[in-house]
């Protein structure tokens, strides 16, 4: 059996026009709107914040000139992309990344140079972005844990909200922030247990249970907020906050110091949790089994792995993680609990799960991107941009939609996600 057919003849089906078109449009926007019609003032980005060990010089860009240069670069990328497509190839990933960075830079230069204050602190932009990303990261880890085992977790929002509420009330009553943190984890787990019970044991559609849970948690916390918390805010809604711990020396490094070494306990926990979930899922026996259960539960079953038990504990663990993430709202970020304090971030976390392709590191990166967009919006409103603040407020959500729909396209999740496992 040595003779085989000659290799496949190539069929001329050109790759999609999506990427070249997007790059062409971006190039035009940057060149014309940001460059030629842009502001001639400079935009300066400071890299240093108070308390740094040494200071770096500010980055200063002349508005119009820089954007014309960037616009030309983007146009070159677009042309390269068209040329590759004509040869039946697609733009390499690094070039897409370079293009995205260039566009973001052009946008920042344009906004800052046209604002009332032509200066923005890049250091606090990044640090603040990480802070805003914390609940998103925890939420997306909850989604990863649950969906990797095969259960759709729409209830992240409810888990975050439940965690935030419980943390607030427990930390207020006990006057102990750590008690609030633990209680938040328990609250998240309780929300998850309901999800696990109905979707795994009673085979109710997982998406419906998730949606109902979100509404339920929102209703309960809203009710208790008005009937209990507002009656005596001193006693029930003045949580003790978790301290911010700065690691001496390291926290004084410009830009990365505040991000990595000047965080609340929950912030440090976030880095640990991302690593642990990643390591657990990909390097341990537990993770291999969890992924098997989410991909092909019957195969796992024939090897003696308890499918539903694995799913049950994973969903619960996810709830604990998201609950802790929710406590960030009331124990770190905001003084006290208010209705709907999570504000839809559970759904953004869900988008981060998909954008991150069900990988803890990917979800982490996606959550950071969303957090960064959120913070940028806040900071740009402060410096007074030419863009109306309402549009700025939409930015995190626009980034989410474009990221999930445009850049990811069809990503492949765990094969058995959403299907309850029933033994015949």
């Amino acid at each position, binding site marked *: 059996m040595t003779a085989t*057919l000659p290799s*496949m003849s190539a069929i001329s089906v050109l790759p999609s026009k999506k990427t070249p078109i997007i790059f062409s449009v971006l190039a035009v926007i940057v060149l014309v709107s940001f460059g030629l019609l842009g502001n001639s003032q400079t935009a300066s980005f400071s890299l240093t914040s108070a308390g740094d060990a040494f200071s770096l010089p500010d980055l200063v860009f002349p508005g119009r000139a820089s954007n014309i240069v960037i616009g030309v670069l983007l146009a070159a990328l677009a042309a390269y992309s068209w040329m590759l497509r004509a040869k039946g190839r697609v733009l390499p990933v690094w070039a897409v990344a370079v293009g995205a960075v260039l566009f973001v830079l052009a946008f920042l230069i344009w906004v800052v140079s046209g604002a009332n204050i032509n200066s923005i602190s890049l250091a606090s932009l990044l640090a603040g972005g990480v802070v805003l990303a914390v609940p998103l990261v925890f939420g997306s880890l909850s989604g990863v844990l649950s969906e990797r085992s095969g259960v759709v977790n729409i209830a992240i929002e409810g888990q975050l909200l439940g965690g935030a509420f419980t943390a607030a009330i427990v930390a207020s009553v006990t006057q102990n922030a750590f008690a609030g943190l633990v209680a938040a984890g328990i609250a998240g787990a309780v929300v998850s247990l309901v999800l696990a019970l109905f979707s795994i044991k009673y085979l109710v559609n997982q998406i419906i249970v998730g949606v109902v849970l979100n509404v339920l948690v929102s209703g309960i916390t809203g009710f208790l907020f008005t009937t209990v918390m507002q009656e005596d805010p001193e006693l029930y809604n003045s949580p003790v906050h978790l301290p911010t711990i700065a690691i001496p020396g390291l926290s004084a490094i410009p830009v990365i110091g505040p991000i990595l070494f000047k965080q609340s306990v929950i912030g440090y926990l976030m880095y640990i949790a991302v690593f642990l979930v990643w390591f657990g899922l990909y390097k341990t*026996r537990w993770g291999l089994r969890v992924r098997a259960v989410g991909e092909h539960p019957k195969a796992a079953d024939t090897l003696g792995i308890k499918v539903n038990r694995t799913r049950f504990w994973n969903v619960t663990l996810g709830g604990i993680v998201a609950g802790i993430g929710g406590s960030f709202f009331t124990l770190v970020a905001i003084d006290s609990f208010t209705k709907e304090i999570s504000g839809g971030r559970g759904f953004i976390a869900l988008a981060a799960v998909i954008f991150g392709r069900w990988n803890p590191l990917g979800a982490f990166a996606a959550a950071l991107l969303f957090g960064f967009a959120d913070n940028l919006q806040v900071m740009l409103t402060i410096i007074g941009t030419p863009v109306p603040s309402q549009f700025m407020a939409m930015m995190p959500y626009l980034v989410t939609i474009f990221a999930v729909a445009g850049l990811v396209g069809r990503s492949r999740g765990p094969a058995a996600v959403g299907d309850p496992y029933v033994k015949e």
Partner: protein
Amino acid sequence: MKLELRGISKAFGSFYANKDIDLVVDDAEIHCLLGENGAGKSTLMNVLYGLYQPTEGQILLDGKPVEFNGPGDAMAAGIGMVHQHFMLIPVFTVAENIALGAEATKAAGVLDLQVTRKKIREISDRYGFDVDPDALVEDLPVGVQQRVEIIKALVRDAKVLILDEPTAVLTPQETDELLEIMRQLKANGTSIVFISHKLREVRAVSDVITVIRRGQVIDSVGAETSTTELANLMVGRAVELNLNKEPATPGAARFQVRELSVVNELGATTLDAVSFDIHEGEILAVAGVQGNGQTELTEAILGTQPVAAGSISLDGTELVGKSVKQVLRSGLGFVPEDRSVHGLVSQFTIEENLVLDLYDRPPFAKGISMNLGEVKKNATKQIADFDVRTDNQLNPASSLSGGNQQKVVMARELSRDLKLFIASQPTRGVDVGSIEFLHRRIVAERDKGTPVMIVSTELDEVMELADRIAVLYKGRVNGIVPGNTSREVLGLMMAGVSAEEAFAQADFATSANEPVEAQPVPLETTEPTDTQEGEAQ
């Protein structure tokens, strides 16, 4: 290890899938369970493997009664199973799949795949498997995936290996290799329970053949039993294995496919410049191992798969670019490969299913309403014509057995005036009695002058029906050969060898006067195409 089943019964509700089954598998014995689809073979093995709990009866290993509460228990006791649908996780590597459930770990549950890789290499070398522990399972051909399954069982020290319909997905050559592996395993002391309904393989490799019908053991016989006898035992009545169809009288080429190419959503070419003709009054069988472009070919003709390049013409009319409805209206009768998903709406009644593509025109449609009387009349007639076994035509299609469901699909498609008839896997999962009936209907359609295309992965079926055979390999037509081409040649072509080369190799094997693989049973006495094979050689 000696395995004994005593009085095993398994009931689902009031239905007994297995009734009072006794079975003894001796140490280092290849024991075949022969029976039709739905006879209860797989149920019995799932009981043995701990996936089902028996309603009654006992399992004994080396004389000691055992009880399995799950597959884990069965594996611990030394029973391994290769399922018909592989229990492999496509996105895992070979090593990960094999480690799963019995992982070697370092401290704190950290995986140690190095240990697993070593074990895989050991077994792989001993049996000449040639399996790369770090390959992703989804990238491997089916034959190799099956070896991964076998390694999985051997790593767990299986003394009894259950192979559930292992040859369904293999080329004839891969099948021969598998039979050889089975003999090696036996020589190393492993007992094998081999489930199959293919008489040729069963006779080639088994020590003992136990025939199961309707959940009961009919008889245990030796491998020397003739194919006709085995078939009669399996079906329960005398079976005509040979169709003895009249030779074709082909007319003009009515259906033409030219340079047809299909690219899937991942950008891979699944059908590559395929060209062929089908003449009036001729059956062209498309042979090939599953997944070599058959599905894409039929779907491209029907219009449910976008065509990247090429043309499809029926009586001079171009079909590419037309809607499915237009294609059907131009005279295509289409039996899809998966009847329960694409051929029937299983919750609809048999009546409704019989008019699924006719409901909107006379006599079944009347303005905007349907003429239910005609639908009823049509059903009564078709059910009688096609011998569909049901007590009520208002039953849902899902209540029918596989064979009867297929008769409903076939009856519906053949009830129109056809200019082209395409049937994919027309008898997959159909009992032997119905196979005979469906085959005669297909031949009858040919004799009416309709060009017929049959797509089948069952070589027996291809050889039975074909006037000409087109072999698909990796999306290309690897030669079109006469209908009486030998099994060996077809097998080589299905594995990618060109037609000329395949004929040359087969000739060499025959002239050297020995079969390609040393076989206890010579290939010449295979069923059900003895006469055709005789003619070919």
